[in-house]
């Protein structure tokens, strides 16, 4: 079963790569049906990845979030899922151009550092940890998509200002649509981030983790939370331009990436993926 799971994850990886290629070709040749095809291929990848994750979970006899491999596959899965959900609501093109490479990078790291299912360290054996992980996955999926839309927004905005329209017209979504996507994705992601952080705090308090409040990871998470709150508040009040909203979303994204790839493995005293 372990083998089937890995094969499925690889299959998903290849399908995402194919979807990315389709998006790229579609972007350059402007074939309207290419975007749809890319979405379908990516959806097939999502199905394969879901099955792969389920098998992995069955194999390990627990929710598959332990260790670098599982956690990255899980995050990639959440991003693709959230992207598909948002896509079906907003019908916005070109976001796949950003989402796919991010997912591919995450999966590449995961597949390189593949490890067989391992036992959970005692610290992770807790229902609140599972809640924390699931809620955080949704949050991260949303906020990564928001960050991607923000990057596209900033590039497009610059191109329009410089009147370099060749790569923009008919290829990228309108600025307004991107800005809405950033807002909605953040609006969806922030409550989950809040809940996830609350679950983390509850966990730390119950188990009396020493000095958790001053841990670099916690501080950075708090900062990211503030950034997203400012984004939402400013946007609702109409204080922010689309560019400001985008910069905030990008800042939040950078914080999230720093937390995952720097703070957690190297700086944090207690947060662990069990690996």
């Amino acid at each position, binding site marked *: 079963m372990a083998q089937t799971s890995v094969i499925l994850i690889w299959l998903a990886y290849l399908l995402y790569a194919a979807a990315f290629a389709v998006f790229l070709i579609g972007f350059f040749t*402007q*074939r*309207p*049906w290419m975007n749809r095809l890319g979405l379908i291929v990516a959806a097939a990848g999502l199905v394969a990845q879901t099955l792969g994750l389920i098998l992995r979970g069955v194999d390990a006899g627990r929710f598959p979030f332990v260790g670098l491999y599982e956690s990255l596959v899980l995050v990639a899965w959440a991003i693709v899922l959230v992207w598909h959900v948002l896509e079906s609501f907003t019908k916005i093109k070109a976001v796949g151009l950003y989402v796919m490479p991010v997912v591919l990078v995450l999966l590449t790291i995961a597949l390189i550092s593949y490890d067989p299912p391992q036992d959970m360290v005692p610290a992770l054996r807790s229902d609140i940890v599972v809640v924390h992980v699931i809620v955080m996955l949704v949050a991260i999926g949303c906020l990564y998509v928001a960050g991607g839309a923000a990057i596209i927004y900033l590039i*497009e905005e610059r191109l*329009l*200002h410089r*009147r370099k*329209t*060749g790569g*923009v*017209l*008919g290829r*990228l*979504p*309108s*600025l*307004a*649509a991107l800005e*809405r996507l950033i807002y909605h994705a953040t609006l969806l992601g922030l409550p989950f981030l809040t809940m996830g952080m609350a679950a983390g705090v509850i966990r730390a308090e119950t188990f009396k983790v020493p000095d958790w409040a001053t841990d670099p990871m916690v501080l950075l998470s708090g900062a990211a939370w503030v950034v997203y709150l400012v984004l939402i508040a400013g946007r609702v009040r*109409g*204080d*922010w*331009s*689309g*560019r*400001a909203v985008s910069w905030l979303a990008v800042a939040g994204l950078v914080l999230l990436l720093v937390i995952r790839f720097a703070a957690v493995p190297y700086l944090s005293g207690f947060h662990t993926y069990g690996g």
Partner: protein
Amino acid sequence: MHVVVAGISHKTASLELRERLALDEDAALRLSQELLDEGVACEVVALSTCNRTELYLYARDSLAARQAALQRLARHAGVEQGELEPSLYSYSGDGAISHLFRVTSSLDSMVVGEAQIVAQLKAAYQMACDGGCTAVVFNRLFRHALEVGKRVRTETAIGERPVSVSSAAVELALQVFGKLRDHTVLIVGAGETSELTATHLKAHGIEKILVANRTLDTSMELAHRVGGEAVRFEDLEGHLSRADIVISSTSAPHYVITRETVERAFKHRKHRPMFLIDIAVPRDLDPEINRVRDAYLYDIDDLQHVVEHNRHEREKDAAHAERIVEQELASMNEWLRSLEVVPTIAMLREAVEDIRRSELSRLGNRLGDLTEDQRARVDMLTTSIVNKILHVPTVKMKEVAGRDQCYLYVDAVRTLFDLETGEEGEAPAAEADRGEEAPGEAPATPGEAPAQPAPPSTTAQPPQTEEPPAPSAGGTVHHLRGTGTEDA
């Protein structure tokens, strides 16, 4: 038999003439019926849109069909034939089919890539079909044409790129604002391009149009035409903060709107972006405006640049679309060729001969005790039965070959015996066949130029040339298809 089209379009006729020739549903159907009753054509579809009026005919004599179409159209419009003649174009055979495909692909439209034509053609065909004016060929041809239109639109981005200054301005505005509902446009100065742009914006659902001109009368006039509101030129600055899109085309020698003005306007509109288009020469809008954070300024050169780029892209798309049309023409032709009598007889004989041979070889083992001589006689006997059975249909088909409706018989035979043309590879063989046996009469004469009122060219041959000699199965390779029929 030829597919023939005769008509006028925005390329050949003035609006006035097009208006007079426009056919409403009843007129279109009546005209088609008349042509059918007269025996000029076997199938007729009349297409009438604001940019074209065309009659599609399936006829034996392309020149006679053209002449009849001209006559009918002239009578309908109440103009002299001689008056209509110079504006009338007509094609037959390949030319007509590819014209139809180009029309559905909107390659022939006033605005290349516009999508309306597909629906219009569909309606025209549907009406003709319901009115009993179409049969085997046009049912197939028009459905095929609609498919071609669809294919061109999914495989190319034709029509998705603006190629005029005003539509490029709208496209850019859409790129910034997404939807134009709930947005306001301010028109400064009453130029032609700004009016055109406003009309385009209106078509995209813009909510409010404000018009400011130095003379209030002119702005009121323009406001009335585009369904907007005239505002006083002196209050320009006040209205600027309400405007999401600004189009300026005054003849002022200096900047009408400066960076400072725009900056002040932004104090009231927070960070909602503003899109400014300067189509005036000399420029109305200070180029420095583009440095204001949420303002996007495009002048006439920028728009021209977009248009240039798009035109280039569109040419590529159009070339791609033309290739699609060519491919589809080839596949349509292949089918049309199958409606000819000679290859069909050959196919029929081949199919029956196949059955005979396979039955014989199936029986081979059980005839084991027959001598060579007896076997030869069985062979002869079966051959003679086959020949006898096929004799009458063969003769009858050759008889009808000279008639207009012969293709209906051919279609029936093909359906009844489930005959299908094989791979494309056989096409040249079939052509060679025809080349020897029935010169001059082809269902689709390649490369035929628009028929001119001049004396008949080689394409309009008397019907008797259709009468072919006995078919030889050797020239063409056909096979009996196991399942289904095509468009029965």
